[in-house]
């Protein structure tokens, strides 16, 4: 093998390793700096979820806000999920999201807010209840009207947010803001 061939092989190996590394880490939130510093309490048993695709038997309570409990959950296959339920029935979340991209700088909010529509002729939705999870650095959530006005600002505490009585009227999206009030991310 002459020197030129050796150099070509070495270049190919380096290029392959670089490309492989890019493909392996693609979408991996662990290389992202976004975190949830709230680790929750002790692990508790989770019941009431008859879910074929994501069997969940354990989780931790991240926070309790008013009558709502916020959970970090783990499927039997190790996937991370988040859920919210009522405080009178701890261990039984009423809604669960299993999302690989959260938390990350491109996905700092996991919104479990409930929307309501009462019109058949338009896909216009208002807030029925506001709650969800937010990464470190998100100080509040702003919910917008279709014209861009802020309808509601909900503070984030312990990586969760909750508002029981949101204002009536259509909502067109939401944004995460930092402690200076600067928008750091917004929903589609």
């Amino acid at each position: 093998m002459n020197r030129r061939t050796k150099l070509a092989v070495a270049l190919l190996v380096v290029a392959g390793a670089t490309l492989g590394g890019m493909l392996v880490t693609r979408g991996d939130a662990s290389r992202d700096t976004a975190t949830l510093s709230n680790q929750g309490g002790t692990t508790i048993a989770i019941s009431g979820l008859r879910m074929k695709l994501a069997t969940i038997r354990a989780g931790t309570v991240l926070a309790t806000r008013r009558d709502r409990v916020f959970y970090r959950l783990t499927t039997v296959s190790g996937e991370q999920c988040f859920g919210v339920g009522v405080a009178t029935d701890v261990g039984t979340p009423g809604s669960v999201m299993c999302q690989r991209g959260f938390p990350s700088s491109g996905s700092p909010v996991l919104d479990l807010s409930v929307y309501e529509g009462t019109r058949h002729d338009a896909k216009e939705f208002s807030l029925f209840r506001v709650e969800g999870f937010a990464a470190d650095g998100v100080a509040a959530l702003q919910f917008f009207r279709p014209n861009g006005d802020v309808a509601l600002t909900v503070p984030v505490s312990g990586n969760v947010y909750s508002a029981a009585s949101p204002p009536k009227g259509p909502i067109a999206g939401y944004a995460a803001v930092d402690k200076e009030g600067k928008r750091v991310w917004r929903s589609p």
Partner: protein
Amino acid sequence: MKRFVLFVTACACVAAVAALARPAAASASWCWPSCGGYGLLGQWTSTYTGCWFSSGEVCSYYNGWFNVGMAKTCYPGCDWNYRTTGVVLYGFENHDRIRGVFTDRAETVYTRPSYLGLSGLTRAQVTWYAGTNQVNAAAIG
């Protein structure tokens, strides 16, 4: 003959064990587009079963549902945070209102009627809001 009887007995025992090991079947179930595949939910998709929206929605029949689950894939594409090109509202509806949670991510989600503040007979629903969504939806009661 003796060997045949033994074979049949063994088969019967295996079948009995398998039947006992299976989880109890739910009293009712609904899947879209099927219980084993994904479908494209678009602006004009409909189950033509009298859903809240005449198009851009798939819904079940009325029942006392326990929960609805939805698996949304990356098709036709995701960014690095698993954000897809589509947005859907999944949840339940009754004669007066439709309620649900929005998502634009490739993920697996579940919600119960009580979480949405609904009770009694409801219809499980998944409603198109934007883009292209490849989903499988299922409800159990």
